């Protein structure tokens, strides 16, 4: 047989296994950590700001971690996932079992998660921190997050337009379902749970994990929707001045909402 194999065909097994693995680590694990970090807003502005300080203490290395450990694996999983989704043929109209519906839902929630994550990163982070791009994003009302005014900028971004919280609620629900169901299918793909009884037990555990993460995600969303952004900003500015003085935080105007105000403050606050 003389067959010209495409790159994807030649490496199909490896690519599918990497796709499966990236769904769990780093992408799925990151999502859980991210939602839990966000839910720390329920412990107050200080708790959330401290968590963000910790992440941003990576400094210049942060961009490499973001791209190497999060964005690139996510983009691989998402783009290859779209390819997989289009290579299947839905047939729930003839075979309407719950498992078959979940097979369909896994693909649809993946697509929703893709759209959501692309717009979410644009909304908060802006994707690239280079001059002209940042200006463009700001003019579109995107790239709203400032790491040293973490809670207030997140809250304002969320409260700017009712469309955002709706998009976030749908996006979080889709991502969490996709993750929980994905962990379950992953256990079959890798042969972790084998017998029907074991698959059923694993199914319950995955469902419980999913419900738990969904609650965490929604409470974070609720927390930012109801936060008093002005009060939060005052707290953050006080924390910033203190943290710069103690050397905990490296001053960076781009991570602030109102850098001028704080420069003045820093000037007068010096002993």
């Amino acid at each position, binding site marked *: 047989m*003389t067959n010209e*194999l495409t790159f994807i*065909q030649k490496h199909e097994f490896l690519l599918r296994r990497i796709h499966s693995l990236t769904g769990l680590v780093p992408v799925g694990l990151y999502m859980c950590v991210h939602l839990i970090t966000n839910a720390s807003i329920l412990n107050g502005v200080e708790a959330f700001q401290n968590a963000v300080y910790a992440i941003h203490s990576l400094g210049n290395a942060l961009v490499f971690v973001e791209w190497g450990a999060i964005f690139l694996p996510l983009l691989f999983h998402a783009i290859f996932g779209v390819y997989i989704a289009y290579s299947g*043929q839905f047939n729930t109209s003839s*075979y309407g*079992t719950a498992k078959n519906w979940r*097979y369909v839902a896994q693909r649809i929630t993946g697509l929703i998660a893709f759209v959501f994550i692309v717009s979410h990163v644009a909304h908060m982070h802006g994707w690239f921190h280079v001059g002209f791009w940042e200006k463009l994003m700001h003019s579109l009302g995107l790239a709203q997050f400032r790491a040293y005014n973490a809670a207030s900028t997140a809250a304002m971004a969320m409260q700017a337009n009712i469309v955002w919280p709706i998009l976030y609620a749908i996006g979080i629900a889709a991502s969490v379902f996709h993750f929980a169901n994905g962990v379950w299918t992953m256990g*079959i793909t*890798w042969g972790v749970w084998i017998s029907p009884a074991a698959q059923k037990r694993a199914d319950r555990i995955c469902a419980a994990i999913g419900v738990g993460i969904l609650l965490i995600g929604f409470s974070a969303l609720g927390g930012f929707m109801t936060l008093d952004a002005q009060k939060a900003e005052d707290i953050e500015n006080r924390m910033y001045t203190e943290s710069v003085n103690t050397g905990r935080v490296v001053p960076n105007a781009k991570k602030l909402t109102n850098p001028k105000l704080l420069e003045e403050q820093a000037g007068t606050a010096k002993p």
Partner: protein
Amino acid sequence: MIASNQPSVIKVRVKRQDGPGQAAYWQHFDIPYEENLNIISVLQKIAAKPITRDGQRVAPIAWDCGCLEEVCGSCTMLINGRVRQSCSALIDRLLEDSPSGEVVLEPMSKFPVVRDLVVDRARIFQALKKVKAWVEVDGYFDMGPGPKQSRTQQEAAYPLSECMSCGCCLEACPQYAKVEVIREAGESEEAYRQRVEAANSVAFIGPHAINQAVLFNSNPTGQFKKAERLEALTEPGGIQVCGNAQNCVAVCPKHIPLTTSIAQAGRAVTVHAVKKFFE
């Protein structure tokens, strides 16, 4: 069953196709009702009097069957939209479940149609060859009796061995896409078969073949070919194509635990691939 609401006729709608690659079309037939008919007997009645509902005489319908007791798998087709064996599909049961009172027959949608309800199932058997679904016992010398198998092992293997290669699991699998190669004018049978094999060889082997690989890898003599079977399972169109919809296990007429076999094979190929990488 002497129900008073028995219909006087059985309405049958058949999806027909005159040859490979040609357009399909529907024909309607009315068969006088009789008790205890199955789909094959209905098809025989139509063959005896191939006249459609509007009185048109047509070519008899082509179909496949063999054992008539749900062990050969050759009579598999879509009956009221679902894949199953036509020999064991009883008209009285179908009418109970079908509100329209109509019986709809179609060829399987995942295999190339040869004619009417007959499809070319070569890909099913090509997949079995790919995973070497046999034990190697042929040779010039007497190899003596095979190793003993424990009772638990026999009991685990028996259900897997019941597969009749009917293709129900493949028809229902959302990851199993149809492969059809149209014969070119003047192409020899051999050249055509070669092209079909090439096209099939990179497409999904399907749950039935994964299950057979697991069966023969669990056999003490079959184990000699274990590594080759696992290798075949990771080739293009291998086990990685499965998307865990679990339709296969839901439709298998032999109730073979296909998704258990898929998970077992999934574990075995992972170990195999990691070992190979570090060897």
